[in-house]
């Protein structure tokens, strides 16, 4: 008797679990599909109006009866700031991860916690700090001397620095991706089997040689995956970038110097969406930029996913052997 009830209960709980899991799984799929559908349908007028030239044009004019939109400057702005942020942030993050993974638990533990804490700081805080504090010092101590020394000869440093430009936004972005990248990198480095490290030491390797021989080859793909997760964050970051990038539009937003203003895809959406007239193609143009951003984000995440999965497979292989 008791046995039967137990079985019934188990059957019911099994069904509940099945339904619950299916609902949760479908939810993700439905959200992504609905989002893509909405973006495509709402941006349809701009594709109809501009065609694929929407991606290659540099105009951005929302004045009534002169509407003309092209997303190229913002795609370039996003890619440039993200690339610079990666160039600064990734080496630093991997350095942090190396330190934490190898440091004694007493130091590494709290330090790792602090790094993760940085990830929890809202981006608007980074933005405000960047706008009111960081920008001023960065302009006076780094940008102006660089401009005075090289401004006339090297195009990278041309243009009067005001602190609202590509490099300031990129540095803040770098600071913002460090927690993500270093936290994931640390986990990946920790996943390297102890035997590998010990083997390297046994061969007489120094600490750096140990990293070079044992950890990097082993965690290479994972580290790339971690960096691409950071890139994903940099590409989509909105508030802090909007506050610091100078928000140029049209041809003026194409990055031409580190000290010139630009604009990213997410920042132009944040800037103009609220007041875009629902009767003009301004709104579809902004949603079209959103669609491009979504596609770029998907590509980046898929690459990261593939790399991380490959890394995990290698790891499993290593353990099984």
């Amino acid at each position, binding site marked *: 008797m008791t046995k039967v009830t137990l079985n019934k209960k188990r059957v019911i709980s099994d069904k509940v679990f099945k339904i619950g899991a299916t609902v949760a799984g479908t939810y993700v799929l439905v959200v992504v599909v609905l989002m893509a559908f909405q973006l495509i349908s709402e941006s349809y007028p701009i594709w109809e109006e501009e065609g694929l030239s929407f991606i290659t044009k540099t105009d951005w004019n929302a004045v009534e009866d002169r509407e003309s939109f092209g997303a190229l400057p913002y795609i370039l702005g996003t890619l440039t700031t993200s690339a610079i942020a990666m160039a600064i942030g990734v080496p630093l993050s991997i350095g942090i991860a190396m330190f934490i993974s190898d440091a004694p638990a007493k130091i590494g533990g709290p330090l790792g916690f602090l790094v993760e804490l940085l990830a929890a700081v809202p981006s608007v805080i980074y933005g405000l700090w960047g706008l009111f504090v960081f920008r001023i010092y960065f302009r006076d101590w780094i940008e102006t001397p660089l401009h005075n020394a090289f401004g006339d000869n090297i195009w990278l440093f041309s243009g009067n620095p*005001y602190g609202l430009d590509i490099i300031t936004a990129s540095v803040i972005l770098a600071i913002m991706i460090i927690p993500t990248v270093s936290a994931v990198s640390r986990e990946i480095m920790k996943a390297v089997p102890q035997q590998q490290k010990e083997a390297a030491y046994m061969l007489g390797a120094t600490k750096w040689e140990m990293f070079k021989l044992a950890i990097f080859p082993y965690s290479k793909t994972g580290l790339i995956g971690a960096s691409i997760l950071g890139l994903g964050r940099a590409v989509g970051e909105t508030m802090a970038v909007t506050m610091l990038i100078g928000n140029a539009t049209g041809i003026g937003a194409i990055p031409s110097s580190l000290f010139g203003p630009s604009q990213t895809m997410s920042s132009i959406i944040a800037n103009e969406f609220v007041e875009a007239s629902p009767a003009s193609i301004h709104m579809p143009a902004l949603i079209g930029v959103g669609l491009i951003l979504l596609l770029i984000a998907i590509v980046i995440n898929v690459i990261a996913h593939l790399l991380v999965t490959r890394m995990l497979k290698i790891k499993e292989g290593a353990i099984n052997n």
Partner: protein
Amino acid sequence: MTTKITTIMTSLLMIATLVAITPSLNANAQSAPDAPNSNLKFDITGAGATFPFPLIDLWRVEYKNDFDNVNLNYQSIGSGGGIKQHIEKTVNFAASDAPLTDKERLLAPGTLHIPETIGGVAITYNIPEIPEKGLKLTGKMISHIFMGNITKWNDPEIASINPGLKLPDQEIVVAHRSDGSGTTFVFTDYLSAVDPEPGWAKKVGKGKSVPWPRGLAAAGNEGVAGIVKSTTYSIGYVELAYAFQTKMSYAYVQNGDKNAFIEPGIESVAAAAEGVVNSLPAAEANWSTVSIVNAPGPNSYPISSLTYLLVYDDIKQVSKNKEHAKSIVHMIHWMVTDGQQFSRSLLYVPLPDKIVELDKKGLSKITYGGEVLWKYDGPAKTTEPKTTEPKTTDYQIPDWIRNNAKWWADGLITDQDYIKGLQYLISQGILKV
């Protein structure tokens, strides 16, 4: 002794109130829509511009003090968002810094424009050599600075009209809004007016977001103010109240008549609205070209603008029932009349009488499926003009009257009626002051 005086005062006030009831009730029957049905609860929703939000929010509180069964929910999501919701008919009214464009009018036929307050835009600058306000600028100069034709502060053009000032030989840094905004609309509308084709109007044009030829951009008034404050030799534009509150230096701008440089302020912006009031269309007409920039009048500050509440003339399509519709009409009427007295406290410019009159006529056009909700044929001639304009704030009821006649304050009739009653007694010589 004191008790006796108080008694006399109290009895005089009793008379005053009794006298006041008769004309004011009469006046209410004609000059204001019916108050919302006190047996029902009403939720009114609005959405739109961020610029009038502080004022609308104060109105919400003050209106609820008088009519606690009406709940206003105003979402300051931006003019564009407000117009979108207005077109989709999901709000009872919308607010916009700019009138509906022709295209938007087609999507929302039958929209009434009800100006509810007036805004101004100040030109702020940061020149260490000129820490005080009062740099003089003409419209053309501002246009040329923002387009990059004038690049240095000591440009001979600027120097020629600022003989007393020590203008530095420095590059001008231009700051503007990065987000779409009504402030930008007013500013570029002004530049298009003073620098017509082939100048600003052709090269840049007017709008909430325009293709800026140069400059650094940041979001919000606070963003532009932030750039100007932290960047020497910069110039930017912010909403008037914001310039006052942050105590930035601002320029005096040449008026539309080109005979004076006007300091921005509540009075000079109100003067600009007065200057164009006779050329304003009726509420139900096409407002798409209406602009009060560069208004005539010797004291008119030229970078000024009306901001609007948008309502459908057939309010049935956005309201739940007739009582609800009436409460909406009453509340908007209250905003443009009684509500105006709160404008100054928040550095908004109160509407001139003639615009209030225009608004009332517009509100009387509102119907519920063809049924007129409020009949209004212009100001009542039998009684003195309804003193809802800011004038009434000059009369403050002393605290002792309030204390003596507390029952009055809790009653059905507003302070205005109360004051009117007192004035009636004074004018009749019954009450000596």
